[in-house]
C-alpha cells in the first residue's frame, strides 16, 4: 500500500517509487539490524528478508 514505514527505520535501504511502492536503494547503507526492524515494521507484512550465498 506504500505506507512508507520502512523508510522511517531503514532510509538507507528503502525508497518509494511513484506508485508509491517500496524499492531498494543502491548502495544499501543500513545495518542488517536496521533492515530487520524495518521489515518487521511493515504494516502489511509486504517485506521479507531472504538470505542467499550468491554474490555475498
Amino acid at each position, binding site marked *: *500500500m506504500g*505506507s*512508507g514505514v520502512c523508510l*522511517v527505520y531503514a532510509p538507507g535501504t528503502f525508497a518509494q517509487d511513484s*506508485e508509491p511502492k517500496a524499492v531498494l536503494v543502491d548502495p544499501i547503507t543500513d545495518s542488517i539490524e536496521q533492515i530487520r526492524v524495518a521489515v518487521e515494521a511493515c*504494516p502489511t507484512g509486504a517485506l521479507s528478508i531472504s538470505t542467499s550465498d550468491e554474490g555475498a
Partner: protein
Amino acid sequence: MTDAGQVLDVERVRALFDLRANYNALFGGSYEDDPYPIWADLREQAPVHPGVVHELTGFEGPAFFHGLPYPDRPHFSAFTYAACDSVYRDDKIFASSPEAIELSTDDVSPLNSMLSMGGNQHRRYRSLVQPSFVPARAQWWIKNWIETTVGILIDSFQDRGSAELNVDFCAAIPVLTITGSFGVPVEQALDIRESLGDPSKVVEMIKPIVSARRESPEDDLISILVEAEIKDEDGMTHRLTDAEIYSFTILLLTAGSGTTWKQMGITLAALLQRPEMLQAVRDDRALLRPAIEESLRWLPTDPMFSRWVTEDIDFHGVAVPKGSVLHICLGAANRDPARWERPNDFEITRPPKPSLAFGNGAHICLGMHVARAEMTVGIYALLDRLPNLRLDPDAEPPRYIGFYERGATAIPVLFG
C-alpha cells in the same frame, strides 16, 4: 500564505483552542490519574480481558471513543503488544466498522470515510491519497504550510520572553497545516476549527474550493483529490465525487488536528521536565526524531482504538463471539516489558523499534509522516529561536490528563 498569516488573530487562536474546553468530557476529559500502573497489572494478568478499557481501569466515565458505547454488543480489551499487534494486522477477523460503508450517501462524517472501510474498498480509497502522505512528500508539506505556520506562531510570542506552548504553539500548527493544504485562508481556518462539531458547516466552506480546483488545479491537496482517479471492482475508472472529497477533508481534520497537537505537547512537556535530555537534543538535533518516537511510545495521545469481530474466535484463551467489539489498548501495549526494557522510562536513546502509536496493518495512520514533520519542524524551530527555553518555575507544571484523548494541561515556558 505569508500575507494571510499576518492576519492570524492569536487571541482568537487561544480562545478556540482552550484546552480545558477541548478536553471534552465525552472522551474522558475529567480523568486526571495515571492509568499506566493499572494497565500494567491488567497486561500481566492476561493479554485479553472481557470489558472496556476505561471501566477495567477503574474510571466510570463518561468516556466515549472509537468502538464505544455499542451497549448491545459484547466488549473485550487487549493489553499486550503481541495481542494488539495481531488485531491490527488481521483486518478480515477484526473489521474497522460494524457494517459496510457506503460513501454515496450525503452523510458527511469522520466515520463515513475510509477509516471504516475494509479490504479492497479501503485499499482503493487509500491508494488515492497515499502518494500525498509518503515520507518523500514531507518536504512538500513543510515548505508549503508547516514552516510558515511555525514561523508566524513563534513571531507572535518571541519578544515576550514567555509563552504557553500547548495552546500558543502546538494547538495551532496541525489545523493550520491541514486547512492550508485545502487552500483555506488562515482567517477561515479558525472558522473551520470552530465548526468541527458540525460537518455541514465545514462542507459549506470547502465546497467553493472544490469547485474552483475542478476548474483550475493548484499546488494543494484538494487539487490532488479532484484529479485523483479510482478503479472500481469492474475496472471502471472514476474520479472522487464532491461528497467523497468532503468526507476525506472531515476525516483529515478530525484525525489530524487534535492528535498531532496533543502529541507535540506531550513531547515538549516530557523534554522540558528533563532539562538534561532537552539540552542533549539542543546540542544534537539528530536526537529530536528519536525523542518524538519515544513520546509516541511512552504516552500516545489516543491510547485505544477498536475493531469489530467478524467470526467466533478463541483469542488468547478468551472466547470472543462474532459481533463483539475488541478494544486495542495500545497505550498498554506500548509499555509491554516483553518488547521494551524499562518500559515506563522516557528514554530517547532506545534502539529504534516501532510502537503502535500510529496503529498498524492496512489502516495505519495515513498522516503519520506529516505528523512527524509537524512535530520535528515545530520543536526544532523553538530550540533555534528561543534560547534557554525552560519551564516557568513559578507556574503550575504540566500534567497529563484525559482518558481516550490524552495530553498535557499547559506548558508554561520562559526563554531568553
